[in-house]
């Protein structure tokens, strides 16, 4: 027998272990995790494991759904009456919004500013939570079949949750704001001062690149600035909780807290840009349809008080 072959046979276990260790080191330090091949691989794994999780959770989901349905039925009748009253009150407001949108588009055309892309939404349920001491990622039950793509923004009625980082056929993974790899360009709503919100793997967020002397106070609302090309402008992100002005360098240290309570997040909405935007002609009119959701853009209140 060849000496090399006998060596391999003798040390088979050690060689296998060493091969896998080297492979892990290669994955950690050499391989680019955002290459198309890796994205496909990640999507496939998310699909497979999401399917297993769905199977495991099906009795729990069925019980929960039945319970929720029973509770909802009791409230539906009352809510229906209340909503009808609200709709009749919202008529004038809708007309006003419609007019403002038309005017906005006309003015943008005059100024030759690009019209912001419109978005549709798909609602997804959080089916997996891979929170560990080192990451904050959610698995949701919407994927390529629902036209979700990498970098699709994920929002809740309260504000930004994060963005999609891997897409499977029916599953996607969402990198939350709190994850240490998350960066979101923001601006202070009051003063329009720009900064970047960065995750820290805990409840607080770092606010980076806030210039010394910038107009920012504790309690200021941070909204997406629209730069970076991932998040559209004007979605709530966080509130400033602490400022430390006495630091060296060009920037101050600031902390913020996310508007979204991940502790109670069960569903989220994925913002899918409508790609085929037809340029507005002179006689065209911008319209708000019933399906247009303006809440994430801050144009409509979440819920009006019942009369």
């Amino acid at each position, binding site marked *: 027998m060849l000496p090399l072959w006998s060596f391999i046979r003798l040390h088979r276990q050690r060689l296998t272990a060493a091969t896998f260790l080297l492979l892990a080191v290669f994955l950690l330090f050499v391989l680019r995790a955002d290459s198309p091949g890796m994205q496909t691989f990640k999507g496939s794994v998310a699909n497979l494991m999401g399917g297993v999780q769905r199977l*495991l959770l099906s009795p729990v989901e069925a019980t929960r759904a039945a319970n929720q349905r029973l509770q909802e039925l009791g409230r539906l009748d009352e809510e229906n009456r209340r909503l009808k009253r609200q709709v009749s009150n919202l008529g004038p407001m809708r007309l006003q919004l419609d007019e403002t949108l038309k005017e906005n588009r006309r003015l943008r055309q005059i100024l030759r500013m690009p019209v912001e892309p419109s978005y549709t939404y798909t609602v997804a349920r959080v089916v997996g939570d891979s929170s560990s001491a080192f990451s904050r990622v959610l698995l949701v039950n919407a994927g390529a079949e629902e036209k979700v793509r990498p970098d699709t923004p994920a929002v809740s009625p309260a504000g930004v949750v994060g963005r999609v980082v891997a897409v499977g056929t029916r599953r996607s993974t969402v990198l939350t704001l709190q994850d240490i790899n998350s960066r979101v360009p923001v601006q202070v709503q009051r003063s329009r001062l720009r900064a970047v919100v960065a995750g820290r793997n805990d409840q607080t967020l770092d606010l980076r690149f806030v210039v010394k002397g910038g107009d920012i106070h504790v309690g200021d609302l941070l909204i997406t600035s629209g730069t970076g090309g991932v998040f559209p402008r004007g979605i709530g992100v966080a509130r400033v909780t602490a400022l430390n002005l006495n630091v060296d360098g060009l920037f101050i240290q600031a902390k913020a807290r996310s508007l979204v309570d991940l502790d109670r997040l069960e569903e989220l909405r994925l913002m899918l840009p409508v790609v085929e935007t037809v340029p507005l002609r002179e006689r065209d009119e911008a319209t708000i349809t019933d399906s247009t959701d303006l809440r994430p853009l801050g144009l409509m209140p979440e819920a009006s008080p019942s009369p």
Partner: protein
Amino acid sequence: MTLAGTLLAPWLPFLSLLLAVAVQEVALPYEAWSVWRPDLLLVALFYWRLYRPDRCGPGSAFSAGLTVDVLSGGPLGMNALSKTLITLLIRRFGRRLRATDAIFLLPILALLSMLDQFIQLGLSTLLQGWGVRWPLLFGRIAATALIAPLIVALLIHIHRIWLGETPRAGR
């Protein structure tokens, strides 16, 4: 045993590793409960590597660890590396561990879980800077040790019904 059972039996340890990953990565109703999220993969890996090393090698540990990495969105290879190292350790001390009373295996499992978490902490710090939630780290160690008897009892049941004793287990 049926034909399907005969064909499936050799793969049971690996399938149980994947099942452990699927269960441990399930969404919890409250994020705060994540503090008590046990590392079921480590328990399953510990058991199979100790009592059926012929069916659970570094390859199984690497694949299951990589699955956790993909699902958790962390650096790819972090769990794969730590779990492969853990299997090497179990192999190194396997004979002594198998001779130890079951009750003493719990602190050893907690120790392995701590080692696993600190390997990941080191790699995570090296790759993406300092950022760790200590309650989650220590909570995972405690939860892993506490739930281990239940998981091990389940695995013993699977082992006895589907897989026989292996003559190579004592190597």
